[in-house]
C-alpha cells in the first residue's frame, strides 16, 4: 500500500460541508447581536438635569425646613393653650394632692407664713 506523504500528496480536504446560504445570512445575524452603542459617559456634575434637580432639592428643603420650624412654634403654643385650658379644670384638692412636702414648705416660705412678726400679730388678734 502506498505510504502517505503529506508534503507531496494532493491535499486531503477536511470533508466539512457548510449549509446553503449560511454566509449570506450570517452578516445580519451578527449585526442583530451587537450591543447598543454605548451612551457617551458624561460626568454627573456636567449634566444640566442634575443641576436643575439639585437647585429644586435645595429649594424644597428650605421651604420644608421653614415650614417645620413654623409648625413647631405653633404646636408649642397650641400645647400650652391646651395645658392652660386643661389646668382650669384642676381643683385645689388635686393640686394639693400632687404637691410634695418640699413644695409646700417652699410655697409657705414664699408666702411668708412662717414670718414671726405675722404670727405674733395673728396670735394677738385671736386672743
Amino acid at each position, binding site marked *: 500500500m502506498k505510504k*502517505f506523504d503529506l*508534503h507531496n500528496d494532493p*491535499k486531503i480536504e*477536511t470533508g466539512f460541508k*457548510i449549509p446553503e446560504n449560511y454566509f449570506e445570512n450570517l452578516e445580519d445575524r451578527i449585526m442583530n447581536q451587537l450591543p447598543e*452603542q454605548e451612551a457617551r459617559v458624561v460626568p454627573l456634575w456636567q449634566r444640566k438635569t442634575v443641576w436643575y434637580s439639585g437647585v429644586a432639592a435645595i429649594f424644597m428643603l428650605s421651604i420644608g425646613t421653614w415650614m417645620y420650624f413654623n409648625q413647631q412654634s405653633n404646636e408649642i403654643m397650641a400645647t400650652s393653650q391646651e395645658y392652660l385650658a386643661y389646668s382650669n379644670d384642676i381643683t385645689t384638692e388635686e393640686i394639693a394632692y400632687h404637691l410634695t412636702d418640699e413644695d409646700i414648705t417652699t410655697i409657705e416660705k414664699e408666702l411668708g407664713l412662717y414670718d414671726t412678726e405675722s404670727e405674733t400679730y395673728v396670735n394677738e388678734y385671736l386672743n
Partner: protein
Amino acid sequence: MQDEKQFIAELLNPKTQNEAFRKLVRDYQRPLYNHVRTIVLNHDDTDDVLQNTFVKIFQNLKNFKGDSKLFSWMYRIATNEAITFINQRARKAGISSEEVQEKALNSLQADVDYDGDEIQLKLQKAVAILPEKQQLVFKMKYFEEMKYEDMSEVLGTSVGALKASYFHAVKKIEEFLNTN
C-alpha cells in the same frame, strides 16, 4: 498598512462603525469560519463560536492597539473562543477536552454537515492524537494554508518553532495513517 489604519478609524468612529463592521464581517467570515471549524469540527458549534467571536471583536475594537495586524488579532480571538468553547463543554460534561474532541470526531460521520470519505475522516482522527498546540499548527498550515509569518503573529510563536512543530506533526500523522 495605511488602508488598515483608515479602516480601523472607520471601525472606531460611531458614524461609520456599523457599515465598516459589516465589511469586516463580509471579508473575514469565511476564513474565520474555516479556522473555528477545524478546531470544533461541528457546524452548529462553529456557528455559535463564530458569532461570539465577531461580537467580541466588535466589543474590543476600542482596545485594539494596532501593534499587530487586524486579522491576526481577530484570529487570536477566534482561537480563544473556540478553545474556551471546548473547555466549557468539557467542564459541563465532567470530561476532558480531549474526550470532547473524541466525541465530536465520532459524531462526524453521521453529521449532515460532513461528507468526508474514509481517508478524510482518518486524517481528522490522526490530527486529534497531537498535543493541542501542535494540532493548531498543523491545521492552520495544512488545512488553512496560512503563511508561517501570519501564524507566528496569531499564535505568538517564532516561525522557526512553528516550522519544527509542523514537521514533527506531519511525521506523527503519516505514521498514524500508515499504521491504521
